[in-house]
């Protein structure tokens, strides 16, 4: 992306530079792609703990007597299943069934929800929700600039974080959260993440973020950049908006049927998803590993003879498995595990195989 607009900065911009982060333009934000190196940072998260600045993510508050009604009609998962202190992964959808965004919804109270969205989508998401709220008694507000977000991920995350807060962290189970004071800051502490490892995401006011990051790095938590975030999430087969999902793909195609709750009542895209559930989608997102040498990367075509039949959406070298892995859309009849197919890697026919996912699952 090359525009003349100045890059947006998170509250941790200077902290990253002081820590030796290699800064890049990430969708208009200046963020670190790496500090010590992707492989080193990746391993730290899998074996100890790493910290990521994810303050570029957007936050939208949805409040009012019809907050739940708005969320139910714009998303595919069942938001009524949430109780206070719980979080849910969900899809904000268009009537076509395609993703506006993939989001996390936190229930703070019966009429008070906190929605975390992808940075590059936050304005679009806000507009879509605001528009959908017409006629409903609900207040939708873009609160993105009021929050910094830190992700501390890895098997040592809990015990390290506990040294900086009186809030008991052990009772916060996966996809739950609590409000409390963390290192002197008012915080939302959530046991969620984007790495496939145990860990937390902490929401604080922007001015508190640099101090907290410094303290955690001093405690031995490794600063990590976007590069390791991508290899970690891909090993865990967590979707990346703009790569694996977008407005042209549905949750059923993206192998996210578990977030589609048709029985909850009407919502945007329900007809399309209902049909895809019954008849099967046209194509499906699958995990693959390379048979030949090379790495199938985002945008590489999948061919059958001279015909283009699919596309790679994400691909990398897996630091944990030490082999090339990726995600791709394949026609349904070619998506079975073990099925072999051909990726054009820079014009060269290269063989790959459909494999079970996630590629990496942590021992419980």
């Amino acid at each position: 992306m090359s525009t003349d607009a100045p890059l947006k900065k998170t509250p941790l911009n200077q902290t990253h530079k002081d820590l030796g982060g290699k800064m890049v333009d990430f969708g208009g934000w200046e963020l670190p792609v790496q500090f010590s190196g992707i492989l080193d940072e990746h391993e730290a998260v899998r074996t100890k703990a790493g910290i990521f600045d994810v303050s570029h993510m957007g936050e939208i508050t949805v409040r009012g007597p019809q907050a739940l009604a708005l969320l139910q009609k714009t998303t595919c998962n069942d938001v009524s299943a949430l109780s206070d202190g719980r979080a849910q992964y969900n899809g904000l959808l268009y009537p076509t069934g395609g993703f506006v965004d993939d989001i996390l919804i936190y229930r703070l109270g019966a009429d008070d929800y906190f929605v975390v969205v992808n940075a590059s989508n936050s304005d679009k998401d806000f507009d879509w929700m605001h528009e959908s709220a017409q006629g409903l008694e609900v207040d939708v507000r873009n609160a993105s600039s009021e929050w910094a977000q830190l992700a501390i991920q890895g098997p040592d995350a809990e015990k390290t974080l506990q040294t900086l807060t009186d809030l008991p962290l052990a009772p916060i189970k996966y996809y739950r959260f609590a409000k409390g004071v963390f290192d002197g800051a008012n915080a939302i502490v959530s046991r969620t993440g984007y790495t496939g490892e145990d860990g937390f995401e902490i929401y604080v006011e922007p001015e508190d973020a640099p101090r907290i990051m410094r303290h955690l790095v001093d405690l031995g938590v490794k600063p990590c950049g976007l590069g390791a975030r991508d290899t970690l999430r891909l090993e865990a087969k967590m979707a990346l908006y703009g790569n694996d999902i977008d407005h042209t793909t549905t949750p059923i195609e993206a192998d996210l049927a578990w977030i589609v709750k048709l029985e909850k009542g009407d919502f945007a895209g329900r007809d399309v998803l209902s049909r895809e559930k019954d008849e099967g989608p046209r194509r499906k997102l699958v995990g693959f590993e390379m048979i030949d040498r090379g790495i199938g990367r985002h945008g590489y075509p999948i061919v059958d003879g001279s015909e283009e039949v699919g596309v790679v959406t994400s691909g990398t070298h897996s630091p944990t498995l030490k082999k090339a892995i990726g995600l791709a859309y394949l026609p349904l009849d070619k998506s079975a595990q073990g099925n072999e197919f051909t990726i054009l890697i820079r014009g060269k026919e290269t063989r790959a195989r459909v494999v079970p996912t996630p590629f990496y699952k942590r021992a419980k």
Partner: protein
Amino acid sequence: MTTPEDSRYAKSHEYVHVEGDIGTIGITEYAQKELGDVVFVELPQVGTQVEAANEMGSIESVKAVSDLFAPVTGEVVEVNEALADKPELVNTDPYGDGWMIRVRLSDPTEVDELMNAEEYEEWIQTEK
């Protein structure tokens, strides 16, 4: 940055270190840093003819894949087999154990058209 004085450099960030009519080719310290962790290097086989400024292979890091360009013309006489198992040598020792291929130079005067260490360091500044 310590760019070795005894080698010559291409704008595409390969170096060639010449001894007699043999040139040892690899990528520079700057290039390995830009690429990040290297996971796979695809090189021409012994006996292949490479041509100056033409593609001779590719290098893949965790982040991205890039073409490798031959800085000089010649026949490949040796390939660094160690990189097959230890591609990270390109990161840890680009001018030493991380070398890529050795070629027998077809035209030793080609080397004079490449940058010296000082010129290369100036070139990097313009790339930043």
